């Protein structure tokens, strides 16, 4: 984190996207998170993805719960309306907002405490309902903002900064999402921007609820020996199952996963690290196959990253509710109010 104000002038050579915006137009305020926090990388990936997709920043609504990850919407898309709701309840507020205006893009930012403990129910029902949203959990296995308690995704046996082991089994949000019928399920790592950006772009374009669990190490409370969410641990145990290069639907270019390919991860203190090995034969449209693969890797203590499952034909809650193309928040008395004559007929039927 720095205390420098962001420069207001843009360099004339900053590239503009198809709607005429530079990358700066997608940024937010200066982050107040700890230096080296994984969440800041996720914010940067969101900025990149939105810029590449040429989304108009004000046509995004960004919502979050409470926690370090929930602070991040302030640090990207400064021209969008944001809503920091209450702990664990972002999905319901986002659902209501989405119902009111189907024309905006909805980003839901959350953490593992926010979504796997208090918010587990709302997470599950958002997946079930298929609200059209990008649901990102920035997962560090710890309650950062309240100073280092375990979250429900912390692995059994992993230790806290003070050496206390976690006795409970972990919640795997990705596995839950798959079981609940979610139609876009992915996992990534905050240090792997090349993997994150296409996943986020794919999530934005997706027709239903898109869930991305992003391992995002906490440098202050969880990035120590014994933590299974540290940079070291994830580096050693991660296995990328698919790599997507996302492009706009118009140009029909598709990247094929290449076996044995790896990407470099930045480490705190310098150096790079190899993270991803691709599975050439992973079929992201096979839900059962994906779930089996996840369980198998879990048994080996490994984390699969990439696009685990997608249903390209998925549709959302608006479709199920048959709402009009014109957003509900723009309908007025003329169509909403049945009128005095109809009321007189109702009265007559009640006598």
């Amino acid at each position: 984190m720095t205390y420098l104000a962001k420069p207001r002038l843009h360099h004339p050579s900053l590239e503009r996207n198809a709607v005429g915006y530079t990358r700066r137009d997608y940024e937010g305020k200066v982050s107040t998170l700890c230096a080296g926090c994984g969440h800041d990388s996720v914010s940067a990936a969101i900025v990149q993805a939105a810029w590449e997709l040429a989304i108009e920043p004000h046509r995004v609504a960004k919502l979050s719960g409470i926690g370090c990850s929930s602070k991040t919407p302030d640090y990207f898309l400064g021209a969008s309306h944001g809503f920091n709701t209450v702990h664990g309840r972002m999905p319901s507020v986002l659902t209501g907002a989405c119902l009111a205006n189907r024309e905006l893009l909805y980003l839901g930012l959350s953490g593992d405490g926010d979504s796997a403990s208090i918010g587990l129910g709302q997470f599950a029902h958002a997946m079930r309902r298929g609200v059209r949203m990008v649901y990102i959990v920035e997962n560090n296995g710890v309650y950062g903002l309240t100073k280092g308690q375990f979250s429900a995704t912390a692995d059994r046996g992993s230790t806290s900064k003070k050496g206390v082991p976690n006795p409970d089994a972990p919640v795997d949000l990705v596995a839950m999402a798959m079981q609940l019928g979610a139609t876009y399920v992915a996992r990534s790592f905050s240090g792997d921007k090349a993997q994150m950006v296409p996943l986020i772009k794919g999530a934005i374009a997706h027709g239903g609820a898109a869930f991305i669990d992003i391992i995002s190490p906490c440098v202050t409370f969880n990035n120590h020996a014994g933590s299974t969410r540290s940079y070291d641990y994830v580096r050693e145990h991660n296995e990328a199952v698919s790599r997507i290069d996302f492009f706009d639907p118009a140009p029909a270019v598709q990247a094929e996963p290449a076996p044995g390919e790896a990407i470099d991860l930045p480490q705190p203190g310098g150096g790079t690290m190899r993270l991803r090995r691709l599975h050439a034969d992973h079929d992201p449209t096979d839900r059962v196959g994906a779930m089996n693969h996840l369980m198998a890797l879990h048994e080996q203590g490994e984390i699969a990253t990439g696009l685990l499952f997608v249903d390209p034909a998925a549709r959302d809650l608006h479709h199920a509710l048959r709402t009009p193309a014109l957003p509900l928040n723009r309908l007025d008395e003329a169509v909403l109010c049945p009128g005095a004559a109809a009321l007189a007929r109702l009265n007559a039927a009640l006598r």
Partner: protein
Amino acid sequence: MTQRVEAVNDFVVKFANVNGSGSASANELFAKAILRMGVPVSPRNIFPSNIQGLPTWYEVRVSEAGWLGRRGGVDMMVAMNPQTFAQDLAEVAPGGYLFYDSTRPMPDSAFPADVNVIRMPVTAICNATYEDPRQRTLFKNIMVLGALSALMDIDAAVIEKLFSEQYRGKEKLLESNVRALHAGREFARDHLCPPRGPGLGLRVRRAEGVGERIFVDGNSAAALGCVYGGATVCAWYPITPSSSVAEAFQKYCEKFRVDPATGEHRYAIVQAEDEIASIGMVTGAGWNGARAFTATSGPGVSLMTEFIGLAYFAEIPVTIIDVQRGGPSTGMPTRTQQADLLSCAYASHGDTRHVLLLPQDPAECFEFAAAALDLADRLQTPVFLLSDLDIGMNQRLCPPFRWDDARRHDRGKVMSAEALQAGQPFARYQDVDGDGIAWRTLPGTHPSKGAYFTRGTTRDPQARYSEAGPDYVYNMQRLLRKFATAATLVPPPVVKPAARQTRLGVLYFGSTAPAMDEALHTLAGQHIHLDAMRLRAFPFPASVAEFIAAHEQVFVVEQNRDGQMRRLLVDELEVDPRRLPSVLHYDGTPITARFITQAITERVLALAVAPQGARP
């Protein structure tokens, strides 16, 4: 000689049934038939927290004078549930009537001398008439209805017309119901009515007492008010006694809000996973400019309090319909009470205050539901419609619904793209004109102006996070100014001055109203005069404090244990509590006129002996 209650168009009949036996529709026919003969009727269900097999009662007050509250006392008990026979018999007034199924006859000694017993072997008749066990149960109640109609001079043609409306297109059902009705009438004529039997002293005679009024339940009315009020989003969770609000809203939306050309739904109703998700969705929708509401009861409001605090502090329009029931905790799910006043008025931690609307009947449920949606948008705050089980789940005679086609929904201070583009200054939490209400913008309005962060945390007037003391205090003081503005916008109280000058007053609200109207009349007949003020909202407009100041003693009549309205009055208006004696009824049944009359009479007599309060 046995005394007999003799009354025309002025009595109370109570039906004791087993729930799930089809009694509810037969009982409703009884009430509606009398209504159609021009005599005001007010029926009340007293039903168990169960689906089938437990006792349920239906108490019908017939009153040509138009008293629609519970009177107290029962003139005729139609005792169709052996389980509750003893207590039902005990409720019959001296000289009253007990009608029972004499298939298993009871000896005369089983009945007190001052009860007139009317015997009909209903089960035996049904078993002789029908083979199918379901028909044997269902038509029992229709046969009883038939017998009662003959005894009480209820016009058979009126009942037949009701059947034809109910069973339109179902000729077979219509025919069998009519047959059962006439079988009951024949039995009564042959065995019960004069000259074959002593008959019944309770009679119905055609009158002109109903007028243009409609007969509808409060929950349906509230739902219709939400339709007319422009609600497009409803998120809810089932709970007794509010589920029928959302269900009625669904029904009305299907009728009124479907685009005839495209079949699209101009509404979104979500049955959420719990009350927290419900209020969360309403909050998100309200934030994003759609009129949204939820319907729940006390336990649901408890769950919602965190979000209510968020909506209060972040200033988001949210409408909550609370159909109150017996508390605390799970309490009495199928009984009425007015016990959520404090938990709604002050919902959530920290310094909060919320707007409450207090309808007295379904007509006001309709009117106030639409008003709540306007007020929520105008004030950018949670607004509660506090109904209760008595109003919500019983059909009540009330003025017809009214709507002015020229009326526009008040969307409040929402800054448009044009205004932003023209350079109108925007600061989300700044008071610009003294009413305490700031301007807001909706997401997606303008490419570079008007965006801000909504949070439950403290802020400066530009919506930037700020822990500075003065910023926080400014914000909190502005919220108080906003609440003071609310007092000028909410439905004002209704005053009924006494016929004589008096130092005594009474304050009441909601479902107490019909019983209070009658009690005031009775008390005046006993030369006890009270000026009455019916409260219709919180915060209290200035006239409430003035009313209290103008009287020595003002009784506060309410249906809860702790005198919650009295507490609100004392706290908010800084009134000496000794000027506000409580009259409390809270056993879960709707308050009766006799209860109010007796309570006030006792207290007034006590005051006559030992006057209280400072003389002005």
